């Protein structure tokens, strides 16, 4: 640890870039999940075709 600080670098995994690097993929996943959620809410449950699909699948 002393050696690492003595080289002037921050502890691995705690820099801003590291945070962004870790949050980025989570943001992407959140975005994709939101798009899918709205798709199911609006295009499937909220439409005639969607209701028909759900009925065919036994979910209507």
């Amino acid at each position, binding site marked *: 640890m002393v050696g690492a600080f003595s080289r002037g670098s921050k502890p691995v995994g705690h820099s801003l870039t590291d945070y962004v690097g870790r949050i*980025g*993929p989570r943001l*992407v*996943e959140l*975005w*994709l*999940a939101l*798009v*899918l959620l*709205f*798709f199911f809410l*609006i*295009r499937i449950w909220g439409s005639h*075709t969607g209701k028909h*699909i759900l009925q065919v699948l036994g979910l209507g």
Partner: protein
Amino acid sequence: MRLLLPIFANLSVVFAATGFGYLLKQLLPRDFSRVDRLAFTILGGLGLLGAILFCVGQIWFSRTAIQLVVGLGCLLALKPLVAAVRDSSANRARFQGPAIPILVTAIVLLVAVIAGLAEITGDMNNDAVAYHYLGPKIWLREGIIRPIPDEVLTAFPATIESLYAALMSIGGERGPQSFALVAMLSTLLMGAALGMRLGLSPPDAWWTAAIISTLPVFFRGGSGGYIDTLLAGFILGAARIAFDAVRKSEYVLFGVFSGIAMSAKYTALATCALLTLCAFFVAFRFHRRGLAAVVMGLGIASAVAMLIACPAYLRNWILLGSPIYPPPPFLTRFFHAKYITPTVTQNLVENMTMFGRGMGHDFWSFLKLPFNLTYHTANFRGAGGIGIVPLALAPMGLIASQRDGFAKALALFAALQMSVWFFTFQDARYAIHAYLIAVVFGVLGWKYVLGLGTRYGRALSALVVACSILYGLVMIVSASRDDIHAALSPSFEAKRRIAETPFLESFEYLNRETSAKKILILDPYAPAYYCDKPYVKPVGRWGEETIPGATDIEAVLAQLPRLGVSHVLDVRWGSQAFRLSGDHAGLRLVFQRTDQRVYAVVPPL
């Protein structure tokens, strides 16, 4: 035979288009892939064939003239075809691809083929019946391409409608219907070529094709007489070459595709101006080329584009007084348009205001546009939707390709195009090229998400693609169900014809009655497309007045001898009254069905 002729007609036109497209070979950059070459040859050929037919049709549009032009194209196609056959027999074992996207694309194209073989039905709300097919049918009958006085929209640029006329001439009235496959396939090729230019591998290009083909708006814009999908192919071709153009020949090719697009639809005028702007930006900013060279190249492209597009605009200027006809309000200051009444202009403006408002023109609606277009496509004049890949994955594609100048130019063009579309006429079909660009970025984004290596990211992105494709397939198949049924079952087709064709009995009577030489159709909304004989419609559906001085029914009837009319068709909608009530001197009722009457004109003793 009813299905073989349209198939033969389409094969002939594609073959001829390949021949004319082969003329562009010298202009193609040497580093173009095989997919690029194929896409540019077919799309360029279709555009050139349509443009040539349009020009020839201004003076001579008989069956012979069409066969000569198509025959010339077929002759030109022999050499590349022989080369392609040799090449394919040598490379047969090499063809490999991912099964799922190939299967999906094949299903959509199969639906397009079968549904495209169905006979057209419908009223004047169907644009094909109202003008896309009406024009070609009458041009063939008259032997010349001219705007039809009672349908002002037949004065639109008609490169694709000229192709429809050729298909109708060779393959009958089903010919242009089955052109859907050609329009979709050629545009899919261009979409795949664009994806490969942005770094997608051949399997990824197949996924691009699968996602594009399952966009319901793509299917809608390419079938039933609509020209928007093929137009998207021309525009993407122009973009593909414009943003990489360095040599003069490449600028010429950019001009060829821009010109073809402008000769197909007025909306392409603004699109091509945006393309030129973006091409200037990319050449100057990213390729670091000198100002003089860029201006010179774009000047060449603009000159070529104007040369190819000008016949349609010159024809309108000479015959109708305005290059864009019907003229938009700002153009009326500079041109005096003939034959157009204030009623027509007012009706068109009202139509544009009513149907082009989408979900509003305010700033908040602009910000919400990606969301609204994805989830509420029905509010943009239907067309079935654009899937969820553009919204979900295209932003990641933009991030992934942020260092690529070509990608930046493409994204800039799509953004500007959507802005223009938003502030003018929000019809989902008019921006298909922008959705296709978004899909290409979507596939790039999918690869980017897979590269992040997170388990949920992989699963969610795969689910997005699967939902988009499956939902699109369901929408496309369900919308085409009746067409497929009609194509496969002559009895269902006959039933559908009766149910969906307004005043069919009268049109059938007039078409088979040998004494019927020229028909007077009194109702503006009676679909004249179904009339096989020459006709006169005193008032069109937009308020067009085709007989000078004949503003009421008595004035029209007074001109019957001069018009050479043999029969009069009078119809009514619902509870409306007939236009001819009671007995009229000089007219004898010869045919009557519910809401429809046909009179024979009795010559004076």
